[in-house]
């Protein structure tokens, strides 16, 4: 035992004098710190990090369920080959990207407009915040059922309103056509998540010191210039946060098409998550499902990075 500790204040075997107070102080704090982190680390690593890595591993295998487990056979890139040659996969990838980009842009623009309006008006702020928390906290399945009733082709209220305004002649089954289904989904999504964007942007707006605006106005800047030269650059972290949050969420869209359109008509609104779920739990192609999952993650990361770098360029140009 060459490193056996000697008594306090005595040289131990290695000849060093133990400085007890200093060691227990820092080490004790550190030990307590790791102990406090341990349960969270175990849960998060075990249930998110490990399964993601395992998804990657599975995507190179042919996976079959057995009576009380599963077995895997290595197949290299075969699952990805299946995806590359599947028009359904390319369609889903395209639809999901398109859906995410359009809804996130619409939500950012609308959200900015509304956040500015709330900031300007000030009076209705508390009421607005409570009202906006309704869509945010609503179960997506509930909002999907709500919209499917509104869009209904036989007794939907949307048709009644449009007919009363003489915008349409006869009732239309909105989710019945491909374009209609995509648009219906987008409107439902924008309704539900714009408030979230508003809250984040409003939080950012409130942290901009009022003097900045006043100074710009004193210098004779018009509202448009003030927005692009002062407000927008100072809001960049809030905008980026809202956008990345939303891109990640929109890319995983599942509940809305599952209830509202069933991924149809045909596969018009089959998002990557819906496709993955079908591969997994309807066709039991676990390897292919894992490949869909891995592709989804890669795509969403790419899209977020593209957005962030484009956004940084935009902000630098504006400022």
């Amino acid at each position, binding site marked *: 035992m060459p490193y056996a500790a000697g008594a306090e204040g005595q040289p131990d075997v290695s000849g060093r004098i133990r400085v007890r107070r200093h060691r227990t102080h820092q080490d004790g704090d550190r030990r307590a710190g790791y102990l406090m982190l341990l349960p969270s680390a175990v*849960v998060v690593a075990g249930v*998110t990090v490990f399964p993601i890595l395992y998804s990657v591993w599975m995507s190179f295998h042919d*996976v079959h369920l057995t009576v009380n487990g599963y077995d895997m056979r290595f197949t290299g890139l075969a699952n990805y080959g299946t995806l590359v040659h599947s028009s359904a996969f390319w369609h889903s990838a395209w639809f999901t990207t398109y859906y995410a980009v359009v809804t996130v842009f619409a939500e950012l623009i609308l959200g900015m407009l509304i956040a500015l*309006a709330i900031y300007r008006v000030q009076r209705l702020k508390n009421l607005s915040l409570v009202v906006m*928390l309704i869509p945010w*906290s609503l179960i997506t399945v509930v909002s999907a059922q*709500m919209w499917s009733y509104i869009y209904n082709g036989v007794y939907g209220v949307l048709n*009644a309103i449009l007919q009363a305004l003489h915008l349409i002649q006869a009732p239309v089954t909105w989710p019945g056509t491909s374009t209609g289904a995509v648009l219906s989904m987008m409107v439902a999504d924008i309704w539900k998540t714009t408030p979230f964007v508003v809250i984040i942007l409003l939080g950012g707006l409130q942290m901009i010191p009022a003097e900045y605006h006043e100074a710009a106005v004193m210098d004779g800047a018009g509202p448009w210039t003030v927005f692009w030269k002062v407000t927008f650059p100072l809001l960049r972290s809030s905008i980026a*946060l809202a956008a990345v949050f939303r891109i990640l969420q929109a890319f995983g869209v599942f509940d809305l098409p599952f209830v509202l359109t069933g991924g149809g008509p045909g596969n018009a609104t089959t998002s990557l998550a819906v496709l993955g779920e079908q591969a997994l739990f309807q066709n039991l192609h676990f390897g292919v499902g894992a490949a869909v999952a891995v592709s989804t993650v890669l795509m969403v990361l790419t899209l977020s990075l593209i957005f962030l770098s484009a956004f940084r360029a935009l902000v630098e140009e504006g400022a």
Partner: protein
Amino acid sequence: MVESRWRTGLGYAVLVLFLVLILLPFYWMVVTSFKPTGEVAAYPPTAWPVHWTLEHYRNAFLRYGFGVYLRNSVIVTCLTTLFVVMLSSMAGFAIARLPVRGKTPVLIFLLIISMFPAIAIVTPLYMFMRALGWLNSYQALIVPYTAFNLPFAIWIMRNYFLQVPGVLLEAAKMDGASVWQTFLRIFLPLTTPGIFTTAVFTFVAAWTEFFMALVFNASKTMRTIPVGIGLFSDQYNVPYGDIFAGSVLSILPIVVLVAAFRKWIVSGLTAGAVKG
């Protein structure tokens, strides 16, 4: 100043239009849940129920077993919230105030992972749970919900702990308190708003989650409310009245929670932007 007043007027117009557009669909769902079945399918629809009825609320419980879904949702959501609050306050304190290594970059990495679409992890989780015999059990949802909500919760708690002066830790230690005592008796009470924020966020996330609940707990006795409502319809008809009765009931706890904790939800939503 004429221009300024004009712009405030425009602000009002945008805001009121927006509030109306948010409330209208919601209003429509609530009144529909009180209309008799014939009126639910009337065209043109009635803006206000001609006859009021509670038949859909009765159906939700008696025909669709909404009470079971409600019980499952309450158990899963409350336990998830409890675990997340306990674990995240410990971890947030350690990251903010104790000398542990490599903390913030790791946390940000986990934060990003936790925002990945659920599809990224359900396949292996499903197979693990099947092997463990966990499918259709409460832990099948509580464990993943806890894991997915922890990074954001830790982030919020860390930001709140950073606002408590670090000297308190040194002062408490001078008085002979251990790290754990300092954490429980001094720091935790000072971060009550952070705990509320964390709890509300976790509650809403767990209450509304659908994908994992559908995949892991699809049996009739283990469904949570979102799965129950998602699968109310059968092949032949969509019982909108009954669906909306269940929907309105599912909103009530959230409405109470949101109304009571509005301030903390808003500060929590902006916390990432503040410190990020």
